[in-house]
């Protein structure tokens, strides 16, 4: 078996998988999340705003903090676009054992709880209010939402166009053309070197 070809095949499959299969991309936010807790004033709240920069917003990662051990928290999570009235556009019921949302998190633990819902198709550029409502059995229990991360599901290759647009918006056309030409030239030379070394017959560097 040609291990070199097998390895290359596995690698290319992994790369293709990342580009072609849907993945969750995190929306643009300072430090990756929207902070809702106000540490300076010691205020914990039950909701906050997220602003997706892509369509198909379908996932939230929530940093819950509860203060009463030995409970199961029944929580309803609501998502509503700001400036709209009526029912929230998404509502998800959750049952959270207190040990998974306790306010003291282990230093290496992931503090977030993932919640998925049906994609919101035209979410890019809109602002949504996300809040939790305690169930009847936890009406008086203390549970707060410290921070929120939001995500959209999309294909990796779909990010190429916005990335190119970003470069074009930020820089003059002369610069962008220079980038394309110089990168292609460097890749071409590197590819020629690499192909010569990897696929030539006889002993290679590492054999010496």
């Amino acid at each position: 078996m040609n291990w070199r070809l097998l390895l290359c095949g596995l690698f290319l499959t992994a790369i293709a998988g990342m580009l072609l299969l849907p993945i969750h991309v995190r929306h643009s936010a300072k430090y990756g999340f929207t902070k809702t807790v106000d540490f300076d004033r010691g205020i914990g709240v039950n909701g906050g705003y997220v602003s997706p920069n892509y369509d198909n917003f379908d996932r939230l990662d929530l940093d819950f903090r509860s203060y009463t051990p030995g409970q199961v928290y029944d929580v309803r999570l609501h998502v509503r676009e700001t400036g709209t009235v009526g029912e929230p556009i998404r509502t998800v019921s959750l049952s959270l054992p207190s040990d998974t949302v306790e306010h003291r998190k282990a230093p290496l633990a992931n503090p977030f709880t993932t919640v998925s819902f049906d994609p919101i198709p035209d979410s890019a550029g809109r602002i949504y209010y996300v809040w939790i409502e305690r169930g009847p059995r936890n009406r008086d229990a203390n549970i707060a939402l410290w921070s929120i991360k939001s995500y959209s599901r999309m294909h990796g290759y779909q990010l190429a166009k916005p990335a190119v647009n970003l470069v074009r918006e930020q820089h003059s056309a002369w610069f962008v053309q220079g980038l394309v030409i110089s990168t292609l030239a460097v890749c071409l030379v590197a590819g020629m070197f690499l192909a010569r070394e990897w696929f030539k017959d006889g002993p290679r560097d590492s054999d010496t």
Partner: protein
Amino acid sequence: MTADPRPERHTTVWRWLGPLLLFFVAKQLLLVFFFAPFTGHDEVDHFDYVRRLAAGDGLGVVGEVSLNPDLAPWQDYVADFPHNAEVIQPPLYHLLMVPLAWVSPWEAADEVVLIRLASALFGTGVIALTVAIALRFWPARPDIAAGAAVFIALQPQFGFEAAIVNHDMLLIFWVTLAVLLMLPTPDGLPRTDRRTLVVAVVVGAGIWTKTSALFALPVLALGVLWGLFNQVDSRNRVLRHLVILVGVAVALATPWFLRSLWLYGDPTGVTRLSRVSDYGDSASTLPAMIQSVPFWRGRFEDFWGNFGWRLIPLEPATYRVIALLWAVCGVGLAVVVYRSLRSQRAAGAAGWGMLSTYLPAIVLLAWIASFVAAMLAVGTVQFTQARFLFPAMPAIAILSAVGASGLVPTNWRRGVPAVLAMVMVAINLWIFLQAVVPFYTGSGGPTVLTR
């Protein structure tokens, strides 16, 4: 008489190092354009410092120098807006960038790209020097040199540093060059005074780039002592070289230290920097940092992620995968040490003989320890980040490569750098798809702070 094998070895090394360096340059070309202007750490300040020197406005004093008004759109990326806190730094990097500012006819957003390219060049130099160091330690193990080069070329934060306007990459270059020059030569001859003098000048250049270059001195002193351990140099010669190294380096940097002492009351100016809001508030004590698990978790996250002025962390699951893969290298390193100790014991080695076997490892560990100390020292006066450890990146890369090779049978070792390259390309692609590209792109402008 046999032919000198070195030219042939150099040719074969270039066969893989050449494409790797070209790949690195191509990657960095994309990154310098992709990262939105001025979103690197302190990039606005460093860029303004360069333009200030280019305009002949002098070095300036912290708290008195204001940023150019055309940089106001990026004020949220400035630690001490409207002031430029980076004028507290020595000016060598900024002076070297002045010709680029002179020839640039473009607006700030394009001009910053031109100056970023220099960081990519310094990064390329660091990779080449790392390969030279690894081959100096283990000439018969090109897999270690190749693995270390791959590690650095694809380390995500090293790539970020090498794509922004910042003096860190030049500092890493000087430190790596100094360590290479300080190591014993392959011919085994005693060290010459001239060579030590050159190293001292390189360290002086490092200090004029960033004063944390001082932390390289213990590693370089170990390089001098190497001659004593190997019984190549006498005690008096070693002492003379230590005096040349430290004396000349510090003497070269003295004008800058005196200036800082005069203006800010201490030779490096760090106490003045700690008065910048948000900087000094995050200062801690050495015991508090050393004993804190969240502190080390934060530094691990800085080391691999936290792009764009620390605004873009990676996902917890991504950090876990990286930690797991890096831990595999750690296990491999432990296996290598165990095997080596066992074989040394079987051969009856002891004392100086045994110590000389482990000198490469001791130098690499001392190199890392020195810059961990630098990172912690910064943390006692202001908030600290893992990038202050990056001048030891070559040592970290070489030890990681040794560990990666340590777990595979001897005849499989030649494939380790290729596997490492594939794994790290996949990690980079995932990081950029999942967190970095979506941070900068999408609706409403390049970053969440400038939208």
